[in-house]
């Protein structure tokens, strides 16, 4: 009992220390973004410079407070960010918070699909590759995994689109839902932002199918990237656990090979996936930016590249800060889960 309680408090301390580490991380991220975005001048000139006469520009700059001392602006920015106010976009004059909440759901939906694809493809094939180590299935799967990593997600997206949408016509070319589906959703008053949930709310299987067929190619393009990483990891750890003493012991007891893989070797091989999942979130978000641009999937990433084209750095700043904070917080949660699953992490 005594040993148990020490383990518990060690976990508690680990969680606390890890949680406190988020504060400097988020602070550094927010500051970095501010410094970088303001190093080139004020966002008004960047967005509208050359389009408006100089006096009008000055007026706007003054009205938005960009002519105040930089430290005052920084303090202002910090306090407003921590109260959830990211300012107003310059190009289309919307509150950035509204942009984030409207399009965040779409990105989250795409990322969720991609993780499902990555798990479905990455884990079983990784186990297979690890089991058949250095034989033909392993060779083929590893080359495919490296190919998945080396292919930029937007190129994979373009090729998928070319073959399956344009040439074969199996899937829609772009977007999240067709006009008919959108109308059906509006009639059913479904506006959660998650297309699939909304589609189920309409109760019309045709709409669900429509949403799924729109999501298939983007999810596949983004999922393949992560699937390669998962495959590699599961393979490595499968090799590790298959060589472990307890697996040998089970084999010597006459446990069947298939049962060995299913019951004994795979569970420990999955733990490292949890530990790297945090890094995958960063990769997924970057991938989502590129995938959304390729498929005109109207999420945060698509919006980000639109705002980048418009040189609207207030909006860019808000989206980037949100993504960075999401990554930092997910990393924290992932570390906690890893510590719960694997006692070795709680040092």
């Amino acid at each position: 009992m005594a040993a148990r309680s020490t383990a518990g408090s060690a976990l508690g301390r680990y969680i606390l220390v890890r949680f406190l580490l988020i504060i400097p991380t988020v602070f550094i991220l927010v500051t970095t973004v501010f410094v970088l975005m303001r190093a080139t001048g004020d966002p008004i000139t960047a967005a509208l410079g050359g389009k408006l006469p100089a006096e009008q520009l000055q007026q706007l700059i003054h009205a938005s407070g960009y002519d105040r001392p930089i430290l005052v602006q920084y303090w202002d920015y910090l306090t407003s960010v921590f109260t959830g106010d990211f300012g107003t976009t310059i190009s289309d004059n919307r509150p950035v918070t509204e942009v984030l909440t409207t399009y965040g759901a779409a990105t989250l939906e795409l990322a969720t699909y991609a993780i499902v694809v990555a798990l479905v493809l990455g884990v079983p094939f990784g186990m297979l590759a690890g089991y058949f180590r250095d034989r033909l299935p392993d060779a083929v799967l590893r080359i495919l995994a490296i190919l998945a990593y080396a292919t930029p997600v937007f190129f994979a997206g373009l090729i998928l689109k070319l073959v399956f949408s344009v040439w074969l016509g199996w899937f829609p070319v772009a977007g999240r839902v067709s006009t008919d589906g959108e109308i059906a959703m509006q009639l059913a008053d479904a506006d959660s932002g998650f297309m699939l949930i909304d589609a189920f709310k309409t109760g019309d299987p045709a709409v669900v199918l429509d949403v799924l067929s729109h999501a298939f190619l983007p999810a596949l393009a983004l999922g393949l990237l992560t699937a390669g990483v998962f495959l590699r990891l599961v393979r490595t750890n499968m090799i590790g656990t298959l060589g472990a003493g307890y697996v040998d012991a089970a084999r010597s007891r006459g446990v069947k090979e298939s049962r060995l893989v299913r019951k004994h070797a795979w569970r420990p091989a999955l733990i490292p996936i949890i530990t790297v999942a945090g890094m995958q979130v960063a990769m997924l978000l970057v991938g989502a930016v590129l995938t959304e641009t390729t498929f005109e999937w109207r999420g945060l990433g698509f919006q980000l590249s639109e705002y980048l084209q418009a040189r609207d750095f207030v909006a860019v700043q808000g989206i980037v800060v949100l993504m960075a904070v999401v990554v930092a917080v997910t990393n924290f949660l992932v570390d906690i889960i890893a510590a719960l699953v694997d006692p070795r992490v709680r040092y």
Partner: protein
Amino acid sequence: MTAGEIASVGTAGTAPEHLGGRGAWFRKLPVVRQVRQSVGLQRGMLVAGLVLTAVFVLVAVLAPLLAPYGWSQLADTDGPFGAQMPPSAEHWFGTTVGGYDVLSRVVWGARTALLVVLVAVLSSIVVGVLLGLVSGYFGGWLDRVLVVVADAIYAFPSLLLAILLAIVISGGRSSMWGGIFAAALSITVVFVPQYFRVTRAEVVRIKAEAFVDSARVLGTGHWRIMTRHVLRNSTRTLPLIVTLNASEAILTLAGLGFLGFGIEPTAAAEWGYDLQRAVADVTSGIWWTALFPGLAIVLAAMGMTLMGESLNDLADPRLRTRARAGQVSGAVAATSVEADPSDPETPASAELPDENPKGDDA
């Protein structure tokens, strides 16, 4: 061994000179030693990676000879090329929507990519290793601050950071050299934390070794201990990170170009930019403007990833396919310094650098 020779040119910046003793120096070059050590599939992957990388480097270097036209050439003596022309005898890969020759832009794009990779990797090694060395060696509050900052930047989605830096450095898009340096420096900042962490971890470990204490007792200065005793023993894992970063640099450059933060099409050829212009083409069934620049990215990135993957496996005793006993027994001992398979803590950390547990021992 031609592939090895060419590749050693390509990775010249990574070859620590002190490894080359008299006589069989060639065998001790980082990559060559691993080719000799590897067997079977691993050797196949390593050699394939070397060949792809060598081809990429050769195309980049020989671009003026290989490319039929200039990267921004719109017409020759027979008149303008025309836009979106399908592949033909004059234009093997067709022409783009802007009327450029796709083949020429693919070939010249290799040069841009190589330059960006070289500048990005070299500058991040210099900065990252130096910071890691100083931070790990002296410790104290500077070390703590640097570790927290490096972790924060490391957690930042890499492409987003690169975009922000591209905005700062060049205001978005610029001339050839301006664009190349802007892209390379944007990528550098993303990579520095990786070199910092790896070098720092090694330095912290080596600092505690007896030979460093002996040097200190003998009155050796800090600078000499850092460079001669610690640094030279801390560079073991660098070639691996370099190869993986090189492929990541190509992908980040392409991503920047794809989002419109690359180099002006008239200033230099850049694959990511060409793919951005090809998005609309694909919808109307024009495949050649997307396929060829994309394949170029895949092959270049794949060559370096294959190399990095197999170097990684060879450095990890659990993953190394062993040759029959006696064949390479000397080399095995030389690489399995740290990753002890019986130690339950090592498996994850012996992997890629990005799988190091967060916040080492901050």
